[in-house]
């Protein structure tokens, strides 16, 4: 966890630096006040840098709480996120009614559902329910995909 705070502290320092640098390009308008549009961003960049330094100092002193999650669980989360990203990429092209049951089945398998019958039934059932509520009841134009709308 100390390492996490070190990494986070350095990242926040970098964010503060980039943000401050970007604030140099803010154009001061004609009708501007004394502080101007760049004041607040620079103040915030300074505040973030100070807080990041405090975080780094604390991490260097070795003071931190919280325990890391188990690697197996983190892999499970990573797999879920990969599936979500794949779904978001594929769904507009493959269509809602094709991509959604496939995605749900994959997530269920990933989360440890081994029996094929409940897996398929739930994947299809959830898709049908979502399609019924959003596609029909609320009239959302869900991506139809190559097979067109039902």
């Amino acid at each position, binding site marked *: *966890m100390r390492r*996490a705070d070190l990494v986070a502290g350095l990242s926040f320092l970098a964010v503060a630096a980039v943000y401050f640098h970007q604030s140099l390009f803010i154009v001061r308008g004609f009708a501007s006040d004394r502080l101007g*549009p760049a004041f607040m*961003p620079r103040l915030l960049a300074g505040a973030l840098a100070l807080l990041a330094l405090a975080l780094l100092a604390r991490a260097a002193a070795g003071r931190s709480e919280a325990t890391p999650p188990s690697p197996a669980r983190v892999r499970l989360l990573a797999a*879920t996120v990969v599936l979500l990203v794949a779904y978001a990429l594929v769904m507009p092209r493959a269509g809602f009614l094709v991509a959604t049951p496939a995605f749900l089945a994959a997530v269920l398998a990933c989360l440890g559902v081994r029996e094929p019958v409940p897996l398929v039934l739930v994947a299809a059932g959830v898709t049908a329910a979502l399609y019924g509520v*959003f596609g029909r009841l609320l009239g959302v134009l*869900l991506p139809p995909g190559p097979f067109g709308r039902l």
Partner: protein
Amino acid sequence: MLERFALGAQVALQPYALLMTLLGVAWGILGGALPGISGSIAMALLLPFTFGMDPAVALMMLAGVYVGAMYGGSITAILISTPGTPGSAITVVDGYALHQRGQSGKALGVSLVTGTVGGIAGVFLLVAFAVPLSRIALAFGPPEYFAFGVFGLALISSFVGRDLVKGGISAVLGLMLATVGTDPFSGTPRFTFGSVDLVGGVAAAAGMIGLFAVSEIFYQIAEGVDWERIRGRYTTALPSLLELWRLRVATVLGIVFGTIEGLLPGGGGAIASFIAYNEAKRWSKHPEEFGRGSLEGVAAPETANNVVTATALIPLLTFGIPGSNSAAILLAGMMLHGLQPGPALFDRTPHVVYGLFVGLLVANLFMLGLGLLALRPSIALVNVRRPFLLAGILGLVLVGAYSINNSMVEVWIVLLTGLVGYSMRRYGYNVLAMVLGFVLGFMVEANLRRSLLISLGDPWVFFTRPISALLLALAVLTFAWPILRRIREERLSVAGAEQGLAERAAG
């Protein structure tokens, strides 16, 4: 005033509005019963549905979810000793003890009835505080608004997350995000990289769904959150009037602490229910029953957390400061409809504000009836296998995000902010402080600059006006308090260690 209530009733009592409020309460009970799905998460999941609605109805529905969730949370607290929402955490102690003694139905009935009493009392307190406070807020000038924004940020970042540095970082990141777009004062574009309106109301709403709801799903997957099955059949046994009369002290204490927590930004019903429980024990004629199945031990926290469902709206409606996760979601609901919370809301859109007041009252009455009917469906939902539940909620989030604007942009925002929210939670950052920074950034900066324009650049304007000076002093105090406490604790432990060394050297 009376005309406004008539207007509110006209909005809230339309059949369509009643139906949506009913659905909201039912959704809230079901969601609240699921461990991990708090009222605010249940609200976030419903947010996309409310997009096409009349804003007044949308807010009533969302508020109804919050009301229902508080009772839902007590179902799992009583039956499997797992609080469905943080507000029901302390209900576990006596609720579960009652369940073990075979009095589950009575515990559920007391939770339902005292919750309804608390919720209705909360609505009256909300009106009693919010209407006059909004008058005061209208008289606020730029320095007062600036000071109030700073105070709200200090309060949330120092008290909610317990870690001052990480709370501060969270708030500053939110404030930075708020600077993207048009400068609130001179209209100069900032950090837009050429494109206008990078963060609009729709994107903000999607962001809240990610930060609050998706992060929880990720959390449940990564931490392997699991809970017991509910076995057996239960029916709610409503308490008799005599029994309720015996619970009057606990109920009144719940109302008092629910009101205090609602007024102060930072709580979501959890703190009020803890304090109400402890005070009810102190005031009780039978304190020895607490922990072994005292009905007062259920009544006090369940009243308190339902009072908060209404009183938590006071800072949001009057000053535009969301003091809890659920108020933040309600704010997102307002932003989706282009409503700016704050005192002007009362005059500009009275039908929304007063419709919400009447709607909350209706929601509490619905809860009393639905609480009886929804017990069995809630238990069935809690018993659904975890992977099925998580996959179902993920599907709902994805389609919901897409449906806000019929586009994939919101889906990506939800995923990204879900990861951000999970990481923040995982490493002890403060999601609410970031949201508050984002929401208040515009207001704080605009009023800072407006104040200095009025004072011709003299910064003393913030300290010569009494209210603004008081608020800024409070802000400094809230931020300094945890530091002072830590220094004292360290000094004590150093002193203790020195004493120990001295004793060892002597011995």
